[in-house]
């Protein structure tokens, strides 16, 4: 049964190549086939959660070569949790795209690039070798550069160029630090690197590697000194691609890689946690302060992405069991409600043709489903009970107080209050109030878009149930245990081959 582990990458790649050759002639491949493929991936990810609970940590050797000579794939608590998040969000977004891409003519290119991006993200999460992680990271990143420029209008091309230059700089820094790591430890397998680093001790080379990895992956995850590419790149993409970029790409490429390298390979010490705490707090405050003055709907949502990733890094930087569980739960919640907000903005743009908040008004009467799901998502992100955003923010603030870091907890509360103010502004301008003359004839969006938005809103409402003892043992406790064991990951991987 362990042969399902490489299927995550194989199914995505096979769908991408089949769609790009057969999608020109047969219409089946651009309408129904992507939905079938992503449903299969979602079922496989739930199956992987079950397998991980029965067997513990599983190592799959590619080609029969034993690591550290060969490349291996590792499935532990954190990997299965991230796979579940990524495939769930991708399933809803592909159903939404069924209606949204009717305005483009080359639909097979869109689906081909989308499946390549999904293959890259799945590969980053599941691999156990450092250079293999770099290759999958580049596959996902280059596909996302092409997807941001998909509409080929003036603003999209400029945003894609700026995004590409920053992304290539980040990849160059990551490759340089992989080179220095290889020259110090003479192996590329992640578990073996941890073994060698723990036996050789701290030296200036390890400090240099840490700094380069922090800058490289911080650029990919949009932490605060490195965040300025995100408000230009994310609004210019088509709406389902913005949801995918903001919802899962910066998490799978940035935050997951930071957790894996700094907690399981290099080992945790007090300086790394302090740096992560400070960067997380800065992200929270800077993101919200810039978002208050925005009147473009998607640009406001992009600034809020920076702020919420700051919450996740704050939770992880605390390095206590409750803090890590809060951070990972907030990562899952943010994928759900940020994707829902971007899909809402796409529906509003599909119906009215504008993104400026000052021109909209009173859309709740003509588009009830969009308005109600947007209200649910806004209450989730602001942290109002009983939606799922409230539980994760509460756990992070309690963990701050428990660890005697009162100032960071105070900043978390201030950020939450400002987020609530910003989203009340969005609701007032866009959906409530009197309807204007020119919007009296808009219709509700088609069925596929409605299904995705209602599905994600249901997960928002019932997401708090993930904290019940049975379900949390199944999903969240395994994930936070996999982070907390630290360098014991090395012994588990090397001991089970």
């Amino acid at each position, binding site marked *: 049964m362990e042969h399902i582990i490489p299927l995550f990458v*194989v199914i995505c790649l096979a769908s991408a*190549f089949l769609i*790009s050759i057969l999608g020109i002639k047969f219409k089946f491949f651009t309408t129904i086939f992507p939905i079938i493929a992503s449903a299969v991936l979602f079922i496989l990810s739930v199956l992987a959660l079950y397998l991980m609970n029965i067997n513990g940590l599983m190592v*799959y050797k*590619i*080609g*029969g070569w034993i690591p550290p000579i060969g490349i291996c794939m590792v499935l532990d608590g954190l990997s299965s949790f991230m796979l579940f998040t990524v495939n769930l969000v991708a399933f809803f977004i592909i159903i939404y795209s069924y209606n949204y891409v009717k305005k483009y003519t080359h639909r097979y290119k869109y689906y081909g690039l989308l499946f390549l991006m999904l293959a890259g993200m799945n590969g980053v999460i599941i691999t156990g070798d450092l250079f293999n992680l770099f290759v999958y990271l580049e596959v996902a990143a280059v596909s996302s550069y092409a997807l941001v420029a998909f509409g080929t209008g003036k603003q999209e091309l400029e945003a894609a160029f700026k995004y590409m230059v920053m992304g290539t700089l980040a990849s160059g820094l990551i490759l340089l630090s992989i080179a220095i790591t290889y020259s110090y430890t003479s192996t590329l397998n992640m578990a073996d690197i941890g073994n060698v680093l723990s036996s050789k001790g701290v030296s200036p080379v390890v400090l240099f590697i840490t700094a380069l990895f922090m800058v490289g992956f911080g650029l990919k995850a949009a932490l605060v000194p490195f965040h300025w590419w995100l408000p230009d790149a994310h609004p210019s993409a088509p709406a389902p691609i913005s949801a995918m970029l903001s919802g899962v790409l910066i998490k799978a490429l940035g935050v997951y890689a930071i957790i894996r390298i700094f907690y399981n390979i290099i080992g945790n010490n007090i300086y790394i946690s302090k740096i992560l705490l400070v960067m997380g707090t800065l992200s929270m405050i800077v993101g919200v302060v810039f978002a208050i003055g925005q009147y473009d709907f998607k640009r406001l949502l992009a600034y809020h992405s920076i702020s919420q990733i700051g919450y996740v890094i704050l939770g992880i930087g605390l390095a206590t069991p409750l803090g890590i569980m809060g951070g990972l739960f907030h990562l899952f919640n943010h994928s759900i409600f940020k994707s829902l907000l971007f899909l809402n903005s796409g529906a509003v743009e599909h119906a009215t043709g504008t993104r400026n908040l000052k021109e909209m008004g009173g859309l709740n009467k003509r588009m009830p489903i969009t308005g109600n799901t947007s209200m649910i998502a806004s209450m989730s992100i602001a942290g109002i009970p009983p939606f799922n955003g409230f539980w994760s923010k509460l756990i992070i603030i309690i963990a701050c107080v428990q660890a005697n870091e009162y100032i960071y907890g105070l900043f978390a509360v201030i950020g939450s209050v400002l987020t609530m103010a910003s989203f009340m502004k969005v609701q007032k301008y866009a959906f409530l109030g009197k309807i204007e003359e020119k919007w009296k004839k808009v219709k509700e969006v088609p069925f596929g878009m409605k299904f995705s938005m209602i599905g994600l809103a249901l997960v928002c409402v019932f997401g708090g149930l993930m904290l019940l003892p049975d379900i949390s043992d199944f999903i969240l406790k395994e994930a936070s245990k996999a982070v907390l064991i630290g360098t014991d990951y090395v012994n588990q991987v090397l001991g089970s081959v």
Partner: protein
Amino acid sequence: MKEHKVKNNNKTAGMSIIVKTITRLTIGLILLYGIYILLHGHLTPGGGFAGGVIITLSFIHIMLAFGKDVAFQKLNKSWSKIFESTGALLFLTIAVLGFLGGSFFTNFMDKGEPFEFLSAGTIILSNIAIFLKVGAGLFLLFIMLVFFKIGGKK
């Protein structure tokens, strides 16, 4: 070595007559050299990527010397797209067939004696698949960059 006969309808397209004569002699040599590097990928340096680039260079050589109409008679756009996707699907099929031998991507074919031509299992098939993908992809890239007219049709 036989001379490569190409149709030359438009006498003013492409470069001067000296370049055209030399090109007729050298494209066969470049093609042969590229095929040699491709097929001996498991014995000497090179393999799929390097061999693919050299074989594509011979087609680009025709386009630079004779003009784009003659080059399109040899290899047109839809055949390039088919070659590219076929190469990718062939590579993935070889990887999935490795499941027969145990785990994903195993080398399941018969490995003969070392240093012979027909040894090392599936490596030679993988090299051919990579050559199809890289070669056709590079040729399509060149066509797209050459044909894009600013402000007009493609």
